[in-house]
């Protein structure tokens, strides 16, 4: 098992967090929604895993490439 850093693809603000610590997440499932460019952009993971850490909160600004969560895969 290795820990994977989940990064935001876009600069924007965290609109909704959809997962909680310890939750199992399927590949392609959204962890959270970032509002950017007037659109709702989900943060998804490529490989299934377990959410171990959230590094942002709802309403917080994020920049492209910022680590928003850690997932054990």
């Amino acid at each position: 098992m290795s820990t994977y850093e989940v990064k935001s693809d876009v600069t924007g603000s965290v609109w909704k967090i959809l997962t909680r610590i310890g939750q199992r997440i399927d590949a392609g499932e959204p962890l959270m929604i970032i509002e950017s460019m007037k659109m709702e952009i989900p943060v998804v993971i490529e490989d299934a895993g377990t959410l171990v850490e959230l590094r942002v909160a709802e309403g917080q600004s994020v920049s492209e490439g910022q680590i928003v969560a850690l997932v054990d895969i």
Partner: protein
Amino acid sequence: MNQVAKEASPLDEVMREYEDRLQKALAMGGPQKMAKRKGRGMLNARERIGMLCDPDTFIESGLFGTSSSNRDDAEKTPADGKIAGFGKINGRETAVSANDFTVMGASSSSTNGRKIAHLKQVACQRGLPLVFLGESSGARMPDHMGARGMGTLLGNDAAQYQRLRETPWVSATLGHSYGSSSWYAVLSDFNVMRKGAILAVSSPLLASLATKEAVEPEDLGGWRMHAEVTGFADMVVDTDEEAIAAVKTFLSYLPSHNNIAPPEVPVPPGSGAEMSHILSLLPASRTQVYDMRRIVRTIVDKDSFFEIKARFGKVVTTGLARLGGRSVGIVANNPLVKGGALDTDACEKITSFLVLCDSFNIPVVMFVDTPGFLIGKDAERRRAPGKIMNFMNALALTTVPKLSVILRKSYGQAYLNMGGGRNSNEVAAWPTAEISFMDPQFGVRIVHGLEPGQPGFDEAFANMNRDSQVWDMAAIYAAQSVIRPEETRSYLIRMLEVYRMRPTNEAGAHLMHAWPTSF
């Protein structure tokens, strides 16, 4: 009954020697190395060829080749570490090279260099796809050291790394791959990488010596880096078996050479069965995103979408598929990632995919939903104008049929890059399409100087939205068709029939046959 005893012939000894030499040549690196590989779940080079080629079709070229620079190495270099020959893949003749890592790390030498050069020459001249099963330590150092070594071995084949795309080249990176294995991987039209394999210029040891810091193989050239950062891994798999299956599947979409059409196959039952529900895959709100790949899979022949570079430049999805049994190349914006805004990685991904399709007579179908190119300081530093124009130029040089379907957004320069403005042969739009110079949300601010909430914003926004609808575009014949979403599959199959390249017997002009293989 009397039997006549066969008399011993002087030729018996010759044939015994033949059999003895044959066994040695086939032995690869010996039983211990074979067992070690097996324990790690890796096939050996001959097993890989056996899995790739149809049974009993592989005919070897250079089986008795050995090290020639150093005669002392002859005994320990069966087939000189690179197995070469010709085999049939799903009935089609193919040139195949497999590196045997158990023989001096499959390092490149004088003899095996000749074998590979011969294989490439035959493949390109006789119209055969070429497959590299790569795993190599790089150059055979003792042979290459010194001025005499370099003068003898390297630089004697000006076409060694020349790529003119006469036939498809496919690579599987199946282990540590340095030097020539890496070169052929990036020269290929498709490179599948097995997790655990490394693709780099030189080994971690050499890199550590050069940079004076410890270098981890995965950091140097692991699958994640090549799938997500460089794009050199077109596909990533877990096992040798999956990699070889991917090579075969990729080739099934391509012709054997660039002067014929790709093979046609029967249309699988159930193809298009979900078309009546396709509009439900598009969110009702224009601020919501969706996975374009679901729409692509619904439209193309059942289970035929073979995605390429899935983890690289993800704002766009590219892949081979079939429509009505014929190969097509799909270029589709994916709003799921960054709203589908095109970045520089996406430009490179699309450009290389257009080159692939055009080189091998595969029509291109574009599905459009993009708010435009991603702009900003970072994009400019990544040379966005150059990448956007490379993409545009590649599209202009594409001579195979090009069809675009606008599903939702098509804004700004990206409208042209995705086939608008006569850059596709035909543009069809769904009634949900919206086309303008920029998204009305931003257009109102810039054109009218109004912010959301200010008096007049809502009216100006409504006017711009209305003007962005597809109908004005259809009225001036800038969109050739407006179609019901559920008709998209039948429209494309019919239009691909119209645009068959009849005068040239299905071959395009291949204006990009010498385009760089990565950039």
